[in-house]
């Protein structure tokens, strides 16, 4: 099957279509994946890097990726695993403490920047759970499997994360008053 076949005409694009290409998946999913990773990692530049690297690996996988049932889930899992591997390496070198420069937030997102700033203040586990549940529509079992934790842990992180996020967002409202 040629890498660059176009979609068959007449049928709406879907991941079940036999001739969906990686380019199609990119068009459909790239933005959504970047926003999901943005919420998970709290940094737009890193989120873009992670998602782009996931697409590079999908391209490298060739036929194996084309046989995946849910390409977007595969890409999201790959991006999150890349993020976890990076942070594992960062924690391993402790001779010099890095001063990381956060990438600028999306211009035009000013009305919603309180949300990303509140998410950044949450513990990583709660932030991951909230982003995957509310932005990627993942259920508890799916989140548990992706993050390699028990379902009870995910439920606990979701509950605490919701409470903490609500408190942070209402603080922002109080500060604006």
């Amino acid at each position, binding site marked *: 099957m040629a890498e660059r076949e176009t979609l068959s005409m007449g049928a709406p694009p879907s991941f079940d279509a036999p001739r969906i290409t*990686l380019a199609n998946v990119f068009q459909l999913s790239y933005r959504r994946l970047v926003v999901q990773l943005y919420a998970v990692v709290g940094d737009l530049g890193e989120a873009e890097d992670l998602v782009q690297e996931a697409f590079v690996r999908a*391209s490298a996988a060739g036929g194996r990726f084309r046989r995946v049932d849910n390409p977007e889930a595969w890409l999201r899992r790959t991006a999150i695993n890349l993020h976890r591997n990076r942070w594992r390496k960062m924690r391993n070198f402790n001779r010099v403490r890095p001063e990381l420069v956060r990438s600028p937030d*999306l211009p035009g997102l000013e009305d*919603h920047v309180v949300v990303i700033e509140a998410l950044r203040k949450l513990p990583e586990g709660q932030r991951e759970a909230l982003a995957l549940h509310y932005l990627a529509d993942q259920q508890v079992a799916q989140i548990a499997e992706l993050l390699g934790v028990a379902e009870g842990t995910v439920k606990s992180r979701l509950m605490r994360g919701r409470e903490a996020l609500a408190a942070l967002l209402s603080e922002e409202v109080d500060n604006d008053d």
Partner: protein
Amino acid sequence: MTEQQLREFATRAEELVTVPDFGELDRRGRNLRRRRHAITAGVAACLLVLGAVITAQNVKPKTQEPVEPPELPAKVTPYPGNTMSTLDEGTYELMLGSSDSPVARVTVPRGWNAWEGPNHFDGHAPGRVNEDALGHATWYVGLLVLELELVARGECDAVLNTVGVSEKGTSAVVRAITNAPRLELKAPAERLTKFGHPAVHLRLEIVAKAGCDRDFLFYSARNGAIGYLEDGSDIEAWVVDVDGHTAVVWGTWTPNAPSKEVRDLRAMIDSIEFAFKE
């Protein structure tokens, strides 16, 4: 309310995300796949040769015909690291980072010294070790090939002020280098293919900056902290995308370095090949 705010944030953010060129990502993926296949083919070829050798040893030939050995690659020596000893002329393999990172093979001329990368300087005298000669040197040329993790930034108003560039890609590394204190671009950054990979070519100079005593320029876990040469020194650097890994080739020389030394440095740089260990 919280859930609604999250979803509204996501909806608006999706509208604003900039979409990169898919073709570039696809090309990088295809290169990665080709390299993996080449490594797999190389391993398979080795196994075939090994199998043939074992078979030949187990079968008593009727005639004692000589068996031609497989062609051996040119000799490559593991780079000894910071020993401050004189290197033999030859090709060396430098490790850049973890076992997943590429290695860099570079051909070094006679008489160069082993620091974090090969370097050369005068100041030698009978009975004087290289470390001492460096203290008497009047010129210096050197080569580094690194996977950077931190680059100095700021206006030299902090003891330790850096930007992390680990696994952030070539653009982030180029940005960090061109924004580092006391480094001035002598020409616009140039995108090209070098060492067989996409790269950005930088020509820089180390300049004096009042009130800036910064010694530390960048850091890598493998090589530690790397400092600045003297003011007026030249740098010719390439930030290279080696199948998704960012390597920095850093050639530097002091203002009065002899032309022949700078030519030797450039020849070394031209000899560089990147590879992945099996």
